């Protein structure tokens, strides 16, 4: 009430406004401080599980992790101490790599079709819906699908079957995240390119993709990281081995599968191997993410 009463007189004889923060009503200052505090707290709470995971995996895994652990064969008796995760490291790199090699080109090209060509036509809308549905399929179901549609037919568990399952899991994630990134590229750039006489494919390759590449890489890395950590489909369709198999034929294993297997054993030696495998997997994903970031920043366009 007082503020409204002072307004006319302030207009009549202008008093220099007090612009200091302390001149604000206490309630506003408190609300401001409270909101900021709340946001900081939320961030902190979100970081706690992440920090604890990193702390535990590192502190437990670092004792086991050395070069021998990365290259040595897995002991074929879980009870026995020593040995390493060589076959699982090989399997993780090979299977995730093969899955990525299948899913990335398909996914990125699919997203280009959806955003640059199909847009809102019936086929594009169908693909979009199917991709959304596929994103929600639990990984164990995808493993079962590959088991009945591939493993049972060729009558062999193999690294390739695991790569197929992981590729199917990655595909919808890559399609949808890449499409979102392409959607963010302003239409003005496409028009400018078209006005110079560029065909749509040329515009897509030389203007749209470079503008979206860093976002696409982020989406792809998330998909790869998720695939590298998938356990159920690998256990179902890849079988298990104790010596390295650097081919996609025949049974194979991955770090995630070995974590699952070893952590379930009652023997301390096996549990130590599980922690070591967990740390190894985390480091592998981290290294790939950093490398992908470096590569994409090289291709990405500079804002300034």
């Amino acid at each position, binding site marked *: 009430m007082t503020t409204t009463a002072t307004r006319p007189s302030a207009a009549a004889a202008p008093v220099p406004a007090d612009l200091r923060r302390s001149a604000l009503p206490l309630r506003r200052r408190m609300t401001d401080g409270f909101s900021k505090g709340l946001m900081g707290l939320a961030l902190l709470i979100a970081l706690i599980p992440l920090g604890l995971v990193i702390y535990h995996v590192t502190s437990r895994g670092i004792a086991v992790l050395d070069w021998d652990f990365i290259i040595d064969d897995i002991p074929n008796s879980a009870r026995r101490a020593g040995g390493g995760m060589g076959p699982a490291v090989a399997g993780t790199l090979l299977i995730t790599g093969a899955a990525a090699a299948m899913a990335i080109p398909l996914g990125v090209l699919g997203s280009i079709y959806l955003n640059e060509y199909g847009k809102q036509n019936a086929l594009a809308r169908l693909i979009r819906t199917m991709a959304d549905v596929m994103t929600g399929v639990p990984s164990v179901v995808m493993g079962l699908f590959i088991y009945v549609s591939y493993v049972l037919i060729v009558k062999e568990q193999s690294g390739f079957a695991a790569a197929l399952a992981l590729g199917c899991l990655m595909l919808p994630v890559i399609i949808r995240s890449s499409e979102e990134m392409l959607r963010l590229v302003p239409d*003005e750039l496409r028009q400018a390119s*078209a*006005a*110079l006489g560029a065909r749509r494919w040329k515009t897509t390759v030389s203007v749209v993709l*470079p503008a979206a590449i860093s976002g696409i890489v982020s989406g792809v890395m998330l998909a790869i990281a998720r695939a590298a950590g998938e356990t159920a489909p690998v256990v179902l369709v890849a079988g298990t081995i104790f010596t390295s198999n650097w081919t996609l034929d025949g049974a194979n294993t991955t770090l995630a599968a070995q974590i699952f297997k070893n952590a379930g054993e009652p023997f301390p030696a096996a549990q130590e191997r599980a922690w070591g495998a967990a740390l190894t997997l985390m480091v592998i994903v981290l290294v790939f993410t950093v490398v992908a970031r470096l590569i994409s920043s090289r291709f990405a366009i500079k804002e300034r």
Partner: protein
Amino acid sequence: MTTMSSDFTLSTLLPGAVPAMPVASATPVMQLENVSVFYGNYEAVRGTNMAVREHQITALIGPSGCGKSTVLRSLNRMNDLVAGARVAGKITFHGQDLYAPDVDPIQVRRRIGMVFQKPNPFPKSIYENVAYGLKINGIKDNMDDRVEQALRGAALWDEVKNKLKTSGLALSGGQQQRLCIARAIAVKPEVILMDEPCSALDPIATGKIEDLMHDLAGTYTIVIVTHNMQQAARVSHHTAFFTAELDEAGVRHGRLVEFNDTGRIFTNPSDKRTEDYITGRFG
């Protein structure tokens, strides 16, 4: 009313405006015959007849929503990129029907370039922005010379010659628009379409672009859409005045009201609506 039209001249309307250059009857490069543009079932512009003359500047003016940009974008088939857009009537370029079934819109756009309302350089280096059009047109030799020529042509070379590798987005708005002009002229089109090229720029940058248009008119044919009547009076040789009108069914359509030499349009318009618009009584 009579007193109004007696002292109603270009010089009183626009002090300092240069009377439009003598308009020789240059050969028409493009002809529009009864052109209507549809978006879906909606007829955005109906029945446009006009010509675009070689090495001259043709301005399209009129209030918002009168269809002048729509007409401009139909001249190099940019409307093809809009779903549901369709052109009726005939637009010819050197006598060739632009919308004939076997005409490739890509070929059309290589000869009829475009500069947009909002400067839209690619998020690439200044050099790459200009070289892009050359590359997609398969030109690979003397790239540096061609880029320099285009940047000189757009009166930008002196400002950017020492930072060709920096991003085009780091330039000011006016410089970005001149970069877009350089990019358009690098591929040596015959006609350059400009869709309100100065509406996002300050008066100084606008002046530079207008000077540039005068220079370019010697080499290129220019069609410009502008909201700014003074700009049309300053730069153009011919002016087409569009307005939006309700038809019998109460639907708004853009219409070409008058097309004539710019001097005539601004000093002695034959249509009452043109006179009302340029004297500021409407629009």
